């Protein structure tokens, strides 16, 4: 991060997949997804009232402990109320860096795209003022291409929709996507390009040694949990998580108004629990995905008190019961890396149960 600060105009801490990283990069900042665990003083985590989600509480504790003081600014989406509470408490209770809220619509129709395009342009102006670095459309397009390249490369890691056995196990794929949210983009693309080239040239590798599982949820940055799932006899063959397949769907179009194209891409990159996608389309997409993938089971990994993903779980559970696909929901606390005994039992019992099939 120190390196990053010296190479750029500073670091923009951001949340969610709705913040256009290419705009941040064009303004000279390094976009850094605020994830992972930080050194914190434990008493700060009580400052946000339950039932704010455990991710928000943990990040607040990190901010209160000064662990995130290296960022030059923070950009919030307005995706959910827990993040809203985090943003407002950060501003009122702590001495924050400049905080910007990017108002993104909950729908992806044309009025929403137009409004979001205006908001993105507004964010661009704020960031330009902050960095003192202006950029042209051409320069923005250049950054968009770099991020599109990331998306294209990441899509090659995932077998879906081809369903060929992936050359990387699931926890490694998610780890790679997570790395994209942190690293310098050019360096990342270079390394990822090598990994993809090596993987594809090695041909199909039979990696599905365990029960075929799809994981679903918000940010799953506890890679130890994913590895534990695999160690307990499951293969994570697909995911629908924030730092997984939801990160790289769709590229940004380079023809026409770039801000509108960014708005389109970010709003239309696929169903998400924080968006009001058409319910029938959402269900159709989900059923199709589950049918094509044919997993043995689905594990939902939700942050404790995460409202959107709990509602998503309840909605999807109805569909999965009808499709006779087994599901398990784990509720995790963001500030804990070690997998709890209860969750170990749940995962093990779930895999055992699938094993008897």
């Amino acid at each position: 991060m120190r390196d990053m600060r010296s190479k750029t105009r500073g670091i923009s801490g951001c949340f969610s997949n709705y913040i256009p990283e290419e705009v941040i990069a064009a303004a000279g900042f390094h976009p850094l997804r605020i994830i992972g665990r930080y050194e914190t003083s434990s008493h700060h985590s009580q400052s946000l009232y339950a039932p704010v989600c455990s991710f928000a509480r943990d990040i607040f504790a990190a901010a209160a402990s000064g662990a995130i003081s290296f960022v030059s600014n923070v950009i919030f989406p307005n995706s959910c109320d827990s993040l809203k509470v985090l943003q407002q408490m950060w501003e009122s209770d702590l001495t924050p860096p400049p905080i910007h809220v990017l108002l993104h619509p909950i729908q992806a129709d044309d009025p929403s795209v137009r409004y979001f395009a205006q908001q993105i342009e507004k964010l661009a102006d704020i960031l330009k003022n902050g960095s003192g670095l202006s950029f042209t459309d051409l320069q923005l397009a250049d950054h968009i291409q770099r991020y599109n390249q990331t998306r294209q490369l990441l899509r090659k890691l995932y077998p879906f929709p081809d369903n060929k056995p992936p050359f990387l196990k699931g926890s490694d794929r998610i780890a790679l996507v997570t790395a994209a949210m942190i690293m310098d983009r050019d360096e990342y693309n270079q390394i990822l390009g090598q990994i993809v080239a090596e993987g594809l040239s090695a041909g199909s590798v039979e990696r599905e040694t365990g029960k075929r599982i799809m994981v679903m949820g918000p940010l799953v940055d506890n890679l130890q949990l994913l590895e534990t799932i695999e160690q307990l006899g499951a293969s994570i063959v697909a995911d629908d998580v924030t730092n997984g397949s939801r990160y790289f769907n769709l590229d940004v179009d380079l023809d026409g108004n770039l801000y509108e194209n960014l708005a389109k891409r970010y709003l239309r990159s696929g169903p998400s629990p924080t968006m009001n996608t058409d319910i029938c389309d959402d269900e159709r997409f989900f059923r199709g995905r589950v049918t094509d993938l044919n997993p043995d089971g689905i594990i939902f990994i939700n942050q404790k008190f995460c409202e959107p993903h709990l509602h998503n779980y309840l909605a999807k559970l109805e569909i999965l019961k009808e499709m006779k696909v087994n599901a398990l929901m784990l509720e995790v606390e963001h500030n804990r890396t070690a997998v709890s005994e209860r969750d170990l039992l749940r995962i093990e019992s779930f895999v055992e149960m699938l094993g008897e099939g």
Partner: protein
Amino acid sequence: MNYYLGIDVGSSYIKLALLDDAETMAFQDVIQRGADIDASCRACFDEMLNRCQIDRNQIEGIIATGYGRKQVTFCDDVITEITALAVGSYAIDRTIRCVIDIGGQDSKVIVIDQFGKVLDFMMNHKCSAGTGKFLEVTSASLGVPMEQLGPLSQESDKVLKLSSICTVFAESEIISCIARGEKKEDIIRALHRTISGQVRGLFSQINSFSDGTIVFVGGLALNDGMISELSETLKQRVLVPPHPQFVGACGAAIFLRRKMEPVLTLQGT
């Protein structure tokens, strides 16, 4: 005669069930779980060998289940208690389609099919509401030992409603009830109803159970008051086997025996 030993390491107690080739119970015991689980299990194991007058090499296999299963170093295999309870319950009665286990620190509902295979399971995951711990803490505030809860609650003739599911809040609420002059038996019955309500909450998340026998196992199944409240809450009579606290350990032993059976048959040919 050969034997199979199942060890169920729960949060409060360790249960041992020794079965013979015919899956008949040869020995059972329950001890308080000490700080060193492995040492506690070994001590109980040695005691068992002595009391049953059997040799170590007559034990074909040892399997552990329960939360502490991985800490039993001298076992040959481990399974989760979900599977152990399913196998154990099915062995009792093949009409059983649902297993309810209320333990010291968690409660589970397990649905099995006509072959004893686990179809679905739910566990409480928030806190101690709906577990033996809830009853332990709240009964302590009443000054009533756990073993007297069942008989005392059967004397209740009033439906008292407690609104708190949180153990800490429930304690405060009990103090208010006592101050108001509510009878202990009515309070205990209400506590049983609260736990049953939590189990009902787990039930409501399971779609795969619609019909069939429900069995209630675990330590709390020794509490007659709990049995009647659970039946009333679920609107269905629940079956309680003899020795309900050993169903997990038995199920594990049965699982092991059947797993080893082909190997043993081959050895015998």
